[in-house]
């Protein structure tokens, strides 16, 4: 996996009107979050243009996660399609009191991706696809990616504050799509302890990132 942020740090948040200050980035992020909330509300009322806005704002992150979990680009595309349809269908169930719109969308994408890798049929296909994996996936690096890289760096920083076992357990579960029982076996942990490591690690991550409660 490549860091998008190997651009010069000072350029990360820059726009055509000059270099963005950290507080501008924060405000921009907050506005973006508001827009996503609004877009979801409009989706619930059947507004297809709101869905297009939501898709444009989240699709590269969603597809990136799907590719990371299922690996095969064609299957990742199917997963992304299923996930966005579910977002549309269940948009009225989104509750901004319980979390951000982006994490709600990503939770749905993740769940679909994990369901996909857990199905036995897909597992064989994934292994085959993995042989071809090093073909580059088409992507473009935009200003949006540069902004996202700031967040990626923050998350990486927070991850580095976890114990190695916590980090490995979380990454195997989240990106590998493995169950906590499988994670325990892969990390040679006593049965039942991986779930504790995952929970402790997420709590630490949450607190380091200042999200949720």
């Amino acid at each position, binding site marked *: 996996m490549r860091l998008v942020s190997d651009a010069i740090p000072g350029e990360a948040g820059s726009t055509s009107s000059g270099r963005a200050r950290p507080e501008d980035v924060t405000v921009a992020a907050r506005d973006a979050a508001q827009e996503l909330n609004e877009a979801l509300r409009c*989706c619930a009322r059947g507004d297809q243009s709101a869905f297009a806005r939501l898709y444009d704002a989240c699709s590269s992150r969603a597809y990136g996660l799907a590719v990371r979990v299922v690996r095969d680009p064609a299957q990742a595309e199917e997963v992304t399609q299923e996930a966005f349809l579910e977002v549309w269908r269940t948009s009225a169930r989104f509750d901004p009191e319980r979390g951000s719109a982006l994490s709600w969308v990503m939770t749905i994408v993740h*769940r679909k991706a994990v369901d996909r890798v857990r199905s036995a049929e897909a597992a064989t296909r994934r292994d085959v696809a993995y042989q071809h994996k090093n073909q580059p996936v088409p992507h473009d690096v935009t200003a949006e990616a540069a902004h996202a890289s700031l967040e990626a760096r923050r998350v990486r920083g927070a*991850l580095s504050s976890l114990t190695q076992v916590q980090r490995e357990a979380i990454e195997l579960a989240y990106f590998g799509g493995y169950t906590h029982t499988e994670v325990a076996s892969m990390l040679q942990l006593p049965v039942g302890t991986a779930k504790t490591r995952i929970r402790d690690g997420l*709590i630490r991550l949450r607190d380091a990132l200042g*999200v949720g409660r």
Partner: protein
Amino acid sequence: MNDVHALSGAYAVDALDDVERARFERHLAECGDCRGEVDSLREAGALLAATAEEVTPPGALRERLLAEVGTVRPLPPVVASAPRATLPTPSVAAHRPPRVRTFVAAAAAAVITLGAATTLAITRPWDDAPAPSLVASPTDRVLAATDAERYVQKFEDGSKAVVVRSKDLNQAVIITSGMSEAPDGSVYELWLDHDGEMVAAGFMPDGPDNEVLLSGDAATATGLGISVEPEGGSPEPTLEGAVIIPFENA
């Protein structure tokens, strides 16, 4: 079972298997602390996605989705104490395009009813009613059986049924999550399919999330059926709107 709270993290990052997930969701329905914790851990978990490289999906995906949402109606919001009369009924399926999945989903988008008396009847307390704290319940034994087979049926409204069968124990358990209520005056009846002969196997209790031990011979059954019946049940399942979850190599 005491450390069920400890599953919150694994649940938040989808690291539970189907049975654990269904059970934890049942627990979530009753535990506000866990709901709050899961929300916050999901928020943290979703940020992990920021460390995956963003990849622009093929343009055709956008076109397909925009075309497809035009044909899909968003679900209504969950309204506390929604009047029963407005809940989906199997007949709704008749107005939809004749797609099998839609039909099945609409049928199952309704689901459940029946009181404590029936629940007692299906758990068959006379078979073994020792203190639950000392001996695993029949349901737990099925779920923990070494030969347990799992069948997952998902529905378009996001609800799900997981069936666990143990041939050794000759029993099966159905675990539902997120099922909407049966239409007014009707119940969800469970059946065991024996090569096309449907044998009544109990009822689903009220509520979206349930765990029911089926009565009858599960080992020789070829599938499990769920149908919508008038209160009290029927001698034979009403086929319209019925859902069959087939078992493998029965």
